[in-house]
């Protein structure tokens, strides 16, 4: 009886493990292949393996890529910071001051998620250039990217702050903390992980963005626009190196955070009482 049950249980676990494995392959195989190929001599058919760093040399020799990287970083940082600030202020407002129109206010914050990026790009170009007479530059690209970034950041910050107990702020204020001091001493230490998460997501969104940035920048290069432009000359090895580096960087950030959390140097999340 038990052995039959054990065997059925064993099969079920095996089936679930295989399913999980397949899901991971689906998610990561293309990314791992690009990283593998970027170190290969023949990027078109990199089998059998023979390794070289030529692709990386080519990438670093091309000054266009370093300009593009710089611009993408600026857009990512600027848009990430703006989005996080707007989203946090919005979430605190919605949660702290309940209103009968709360649902409507929430939807208005999230609506940009449902607007195609292409449309955000074109309309912010038309609005900035035609109506306001502003030239397309990094600033307008930051602002346009922050439209979408704010909506994403709002969602992330909201997900954690619904669990925050605002009575904690009441307590701080009764004990003499002014609203600003209360935010700094009590609210922020509890909610910063979600702000950080929101920043990371909105940073990556803006950093990777092609459509919105392209319309606002024109000839100013960003990593996605350069990568896209170079496609006209075929899949160059430097693109493989670029993709591998970008992914490597993101993985490195997450790995670092994981280590910090495991070792307890950074307390990620709310220390529930």
């Amino acid at each position, binding site marked *: 009886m038990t052995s039959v049950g054990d065997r059925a249980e064993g099969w079920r676990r095996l089936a679930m493990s295989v399913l999980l494995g397949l899901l991971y392959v689906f998610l990561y195989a293309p990314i791992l292949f690009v990283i593998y190929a970027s170190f290969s001599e023949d990027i078109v058919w990199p089998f059998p393996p023979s390794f070289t760093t030529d692709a990386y040399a080519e990438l670093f020799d091309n000054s266009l890529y370093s300009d593009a990287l710089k611009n993408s970083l600026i857009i990512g940082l600027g848009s990430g910071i703006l989005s996080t600030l707007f989203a946090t202020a919005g979430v605190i407002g919605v949660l702290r001051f309940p209103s009968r129109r709360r649902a409507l206010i929430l939807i208005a914050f999230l609506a940009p998620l449902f607007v195609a990026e292409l449309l955000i790009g074109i309309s912010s170009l038309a609005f900035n250039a035609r109506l306001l007479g502003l030239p397309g530059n990094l600033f307008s690209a930051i602002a346009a990217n922050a439209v979408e970034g704010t909506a994403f950041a709002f969602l992330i910050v909201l997900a954690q702050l619904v669990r925050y107990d605002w009575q904690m702020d*009441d307590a*701080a*204020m*009764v*004990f*003499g903390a002014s609203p600003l001091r209360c935010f700094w001493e009590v609210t922020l*230490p509890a909610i910063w992980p979600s702000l950080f998460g929101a920043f990371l997501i909105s940073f990556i969104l803006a950093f990777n963005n092609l459509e919105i940035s392209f319309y606002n920048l024109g000839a100013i290069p960003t990593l996605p626009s350069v990568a896209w432009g170079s496609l006209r000359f075929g899949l160059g090895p430097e693109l493989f190196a670029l993709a591998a580096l970008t992914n490597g960087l993101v993985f490195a950030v997450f790995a670092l955070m994981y280590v910090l959390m495991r070792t307890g140097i950074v307390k990620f999340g709310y*220390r529930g*009482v």
Partner: protein
Amino acid sequence: MTRADDRPASLSLQSVSKHFGPVRAVDGIDLAIGQDEFFSLLGPSGSGKTTMLRIIAGLERPTTGRVLVRGQDVTTMPPYRRRIGMVFQNFLLFPHKTVAENIVFPLRMQNVARAERDERLLWAMKLLRLDGLAERYPNELSGGQQQRVSLARGLISRPALLLLDEPLANLDRELRAEMEVEIRRYQKELNIPFVYVTHNQEEALTMSDRIAVMRNGVFEQIGPRNDVYRKPATAFVAAFVGQSNQLTARAEMVGPDSLTLTWRGHRLHLPHPGGIKAGDDVRFFIKYEDIEVTPERTAPGNHVGGHLRDIIFKGQTANYIVSLADGSEIIASASSRDQKVTIGEAVSVTWPASAGMCFKT
């Protein structure tokens, strides 16, 4: 409500109301609390007691009326300038701060010098027996320890007033009884007025000097704890405080301090507060412990016969449930030690003519 004392009251509320739309959460409350007082606001949930506490703390602004702390009008003052201490039901310790950081938080906000802060921290930790826990985080403490940290944080700045919002509601029974005694001791030792909100009548009766029983935003009764328990002013107070039997009937003859009625065939003489005429429907409340259950009628006074249905053992006391001929029940409470009656036997239920109180329905 007024005190003979001519010092300004530590806290006074002058016709304070708070309306949320059409709801009058607090409705024209007047109150003065003295420097040495342990004052409890007792009421069911939704009676407005927490709203009143939040008004005193400055977390809600009253719709009308004034709030004075030590004679100073603080009605429009934000909470962080009022220098009032508070202890919350769910403790509300700052989860990312250690016990020591939590306790000195009020002093840091008041920019007290570090040397004095440390000195006061030691005092508070000793007072609340928190030695050795200074570096712990709140999630590493037991419920009782968290509540003591919360009290230490409330008391460390020696506030003009300490507000306590159901501080024992989340603790288990044994710990609650222990903390009741401790909290009253701190109040008497430190001579800081405490305003204690609770829905638990035992807590209010154990700790308070005075109790206000609140319902629907108004005081049903305010007075020394003995009065609230022994001389309820309204039917609501009589039903809410203590454990009472409730009998309803029509008054037949009304004298100056006693009325006569017939309840289920028994003629009873009952005290009343006035304002009742013959023919009025009345409710009579009598506490369990005022009733005596004996095998035969012994004492004079009101008498009802029945048979003992059950004895509910409560430890020190027991509840004797008596079924009357028509199926209704009367409960008496007495020492559980020397039971003179046995279950199933005919018994006599008696109480003195002066016990309990009638109210007009």
